[in-house]
């Protein structure tokens, strides 16, 4: 029983990181129908920039803020330099561009930073908190709390604000959105900035637990993608639930089967979702009008 609780805690922690990556996917997907496979690199950049800024003597909160802002700027640059020039290209081509961008960002980080594993000090100490026979690290609570706050903020953003609705309108019909006065180019820029910022935040929160190096982005992007697919692409609620579920699956597999199989879980989830319910748990059934 105690071990189950322990697996649940670690599953929720990892799941919250996946949820944050999946939430980043959600925004860009909502604005453009594009799955941005560079999303994992945003997480890596968030962690790496914070580590190097902190080592350079900048206080941790400031270093984290710097990382989020810089990563958001890199997200905007990605949109302006790689995505916007390809406007009008099929969605698949743009997805491939994002894969190329992710390889580029990874390579550049390897040169600019280094190839070592880095860690950050925990935000509120390393003393484990005991809950019912199991323990949880304070940093885990930061990660889970961060995922919940970002989720609520995004939910309100998409359902209540004009800008959020403009993002949805842009995805639904770009020309129609322009006709009612929505500046669709600014909306795209905003989506990339927001997505990158959320990715960076995930990196900042998770680095004290998971460590960071230039190549952590690939696995995170795949896991986040699996989470978003499981929950239903484009739905913030789906991203949160999908992320947490995937984390729990992984933790339980590692705990009760073998940690060797842990990595396979995400891929089994992707396959199962694609076979059984391509729209995911909360995704809208897509209907093509003929």
């Amino acid at each position, binding site marked *: 029983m105690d071990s189950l609780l322990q697996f649940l805690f670690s599953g929720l922690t990892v799941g919250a990181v996946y949820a944050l990556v999946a939430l980043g996917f959600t925004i860009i997907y909502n604005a453009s129908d594009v799955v941005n496979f560079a999303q994992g690199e945003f997480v890596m950049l968030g962690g790496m920039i914070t580590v190097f800024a902190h080592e350079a003597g900048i206080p941790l909160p400031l270093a984290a803020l710097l990382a989020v802002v810089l990563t958001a700027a890199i997200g905007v640059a990605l949109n302006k330099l790689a995505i916007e020039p390809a406007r009008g290209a099929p969605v698949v081509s743009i997805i491939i561009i994002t894969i190329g961008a992710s390889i580029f960002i990874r390579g550049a980080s390897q040169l600019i930073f280094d190839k070592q594993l880095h860690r950050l000090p925990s935000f509120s100490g390393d003393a484990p908190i005991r809950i019912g026979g199991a323990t949880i690290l304070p940093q885990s609570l930061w990660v889970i709390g961060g995922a919940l706050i970002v989720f609520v903020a995004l939910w309100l953003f998409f359902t209540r604000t004009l800008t959020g609705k403009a993002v949805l*309108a842009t995805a639904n019909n770009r020309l129609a959105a322009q006709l009612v006065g*929505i500046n669709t180019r600014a909306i795209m820029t905003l989506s990339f900035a927001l997505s990158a910022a959320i990715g960076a935040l995930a990196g900042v929160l998770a680095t004290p637990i998971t460590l960071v190096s230039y190549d952590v982005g690939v696995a995170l992007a795949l896991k986040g993608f699996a989470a978003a697919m499981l929950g239903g692409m484009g739905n913030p609620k789906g991203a949160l639930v999908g992320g947490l579920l995937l984390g729990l699956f992984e933790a339980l597999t590692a705990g009760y089967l073998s940690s060797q199989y842990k990595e396979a879980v995400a891929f089994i989830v992707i396959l199962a979702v694609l076979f059984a319910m391509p729209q995911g748990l909360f995704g809208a059934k897509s209907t093509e009008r003929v």
Partner: protein
Amino acid sequence: MTLLHIEGLGINFGGLKAVDNVSFAAAAGQVTSVIGPNGAGKTTLFNMISGVYTPGSGRVALDGDNVTGIHPSQLARRGLSRTFQNLQIFQDMSVLDNALAGFHLSERGSVWGDMLSLPAARRRARDARDGAMKLLKRVRLDDLASEVAGNLSYGQLKRLEIARALGVGPRVLLLDEPAAGCNAVETEEIDTLIAELAASGIAVLLVEHDMKLVMRISHHVVVLDHGQMIAEGDPESVSQNPEVIKAYLGTEAVDNVAG
């Protein structure tokens, strides 16, 4: 008062002159119709005026300001709105949300105010909702407000698109074949609606194939053929213009009319 000035507008697609040197003006409170056989360049002309295509030559002026080739979202801000022959509807949204989208520019509020649902934000959202419902009533779609737009019939979507375009509060409204695919009753409703819109002071620019409708409600008619403007004037004189009859019916018909 002329609101929209078109001067020497033209565009080439490859070697094809889709529209060549077209000039006319549209006045507030009047219906100006653009007619012509299929492929005459009417929709291309509309696409240039509304910023969807950038004109190869010529000039579009809105209320004296040069607006040639500026982005559709900017034109919406300046009070030019349009509908499409092949519909540009938010298919996944409800009918009401489609109409509400038309109010995007008039709704202004801070992101934080909206997220926290402050009273001012709620009031503004309610006002926009009331406005959208009024427009839906005007195009007789109010009973379908909560339906998903994708489920509507073609004729209903045409009316929904007009409602959304009206939400922008246009001074110039471009309607591309609003009556296409509508039955006789629906056509008559659209007829009445367009006349009302013009009477309210909007400069209505109309592309339409239903000649009866055009002749009944237009104040001014512009005729295109093969991208060229071949005639212009009031409906009466245009319908008797031999060039126009030739474009629509061929030369023999003109000979018969003349003989």
